[in-house]
C-alpha cells in the first residue's frame, strides 16, 4: 500500500516533468502532440478510491496547465478521463473481476485488454482536449485529424512505456 503511494507519487512527478520539459516541445507539423502524462491515470491501482482518482487527475491536469499556461484545459480533460475510467473498467472487466493486487498493465491483462482500455480513455481525453482548445467546430476535420494522430502517438508512447515499467511490477 505504502509502496504503491510512493510509486505513484514518483510516477506523477516524472510524467509531469517529462511532459512539460520534453513532450511539449514536440510538435511535428502542428498535428502530432503526444500527451503521455495520462499514463498516470491509466496506471493507478484498481483499489484507488473513485474520488481520489478524480482528485489526482485534476491535480495532474492542473500541473500541466500551470506549465503550459492553458488555464484548466488539461485539468478538464483529465477529470473527464478519470470519470470515465471506472465505467470503462467495468465494461471490459474479465469474467472473474479484478483482483486487489493486480495492476492495469499489459503484463497482467494482455495486449488486447490494455489496448481497449487505453485507446478508449486516450481518445476521449484527446478529443475533449483538442476541441476545447479550438473551441469551435468550424475546423472540425482538421481538429479531428489532430485528435486521431495525437492519440496514436500517445498510445504508442503508452505501450512503449509498458516495457519500462514492467521490471518493477510482478
Amino acid at each position: 500500500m505504502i509502496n504503491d503511494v510512493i510509486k505513484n507519487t514518483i510516477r506523477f512527478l516524472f510524467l509531469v516533468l517529462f511532459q512539460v520539459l520534453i513532450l511539449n516541445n514536440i510538435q511535428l507539423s502542428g498535428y502530432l502532440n503526444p500527451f503521455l502524462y495520462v499514463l498516470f491515470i491509466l496506471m493507478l491501482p484498481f483499489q484507488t478510491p473513485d474520488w481520489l482518482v478524480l482528485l489526482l487527475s485534476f491535480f495532474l491536469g492542473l500541473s500541466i496547465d500551470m506549465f503550459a499556461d492553458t488555464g484548466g484545459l488539461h485539468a478538464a480533460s483529465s477529470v473527464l478521463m478519470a470519470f470515465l475510467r471506472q465505467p470503462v473498467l467495468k465494461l471490459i472487466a474479465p469474467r472473474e473481476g479484478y483482483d486487489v493486487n493486480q495492476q492495469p498493465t499489459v503484463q497482467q491483462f494482455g495486449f488486447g485488454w490494455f489496448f481497449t482500455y487505453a485507446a478508449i480513455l486516450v481518445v476521449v481525453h484527446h478529443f475533449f482536449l483538442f476541441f476545447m482548445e479550438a473551441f469551435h467546430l468550424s475546423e472540425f476535420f482538421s481538429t479531428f485529424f489532430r485528435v486521431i494522430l495525437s492519440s496514436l502517438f500517445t498510445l504508442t508512447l503508452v505501450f512503449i512505456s509498458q516495457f519500462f515499467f514492467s521490471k518493477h511490477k510482478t
Partner: protein
Amino acid sequence: MRNLILFLTRNYYFILFLALETFSVFLIIQNNHFQRAHFLNSSNAITGNIYEMASGVTEYFGLKNQNYKLAQENVILRNQLRNSFGTKVNPNVSFKDSIHSKQFIYISAKVVNNSTNRRKNYLTLNMGKNQGITNESGVICGEGIVGIVRDVSDNFSSVMSVLHESARIPVEIKRFNENSILTWNGNDELYGQMERIPSHLEIRKGDTVLTSSYSTIFPEGVMVGTIDSFEKVAGNTFFNVTLKFSTDFSRLKYVTVAKNLMKEEQSNLETNSQK
C-alpha cells in the same frame, strides 16, 4: 434533508466530477481573459524554477538564437573592416584627418519570406526604412551574394533575388580579374550564367567568381560561386560559363544588407559626365 444527504452520498462520484469539471472550465474561460489569475500560470516560483533548470540543459538547443546574435556581432565587426572604407584622399598627401571614410554599412536582417521556385524570385526581410535600409542596397550572406533591395517599407524590405530573370550583377573571375555579368536563366536554383568570357583565358572548373568593383551595389570581392562548366560558342572567341552559386538560396535565414554610402556620389558623377 435526509434524502438530500442520501442523494449526495450516493452520487458523490458524479457530483465531485461535476464540481472539478466546472472548476476546470471556469479556469479555461478565465484564462482567456486579459487579466488572468496569476497563481496558476508558468511565471510562479515552482514552474519558473523548473523551467530555468531545464533551460540550463536546453541552452544547447537554442543555438539558433545564438547564431543570430553572432550574425549581429559579425555585422558590427564587418563595419570596422578595412575594405568597407573607401579612400577619400590621395594617401600620398599628408592630411590631418583619417584617410579612410566609410563606404559600406552592414545591417543584419532576418529572411521572413523566400522563394526559389519561380522565374522571378523575391525575398522579404524584417528590416526596412526605420532600420536604415535603402533601395538598391546589396544583400549578402555568409556564403555569398543574395540579391538587391528593390522596395522598402517602414519595417520590411523586398529583395530581388539573384535568382531573377532580370538580375544582372557585375562579377569577376578572381584568378584573371576578368569582368563579366552574372545572369540567371530561370531554371536551376543552383546555377547561374556568365557570358562573353574571352576564350584565351585558361579558365578551369572550380575557379572562384567574386563581385567586381564595377558594382555600386555590392562591396567588392564578395563570394558569388565557382565555375562549374564552360563551352565555347561556335564561331566565336567567347566562352559561355555556368557558375555554381555558393549561396544556398533555399535555406536563407539571416542575411546582411550592404548599404553603399557613396553610391549617390558615384552615380551622380557618372550621369553628369555622360551627358
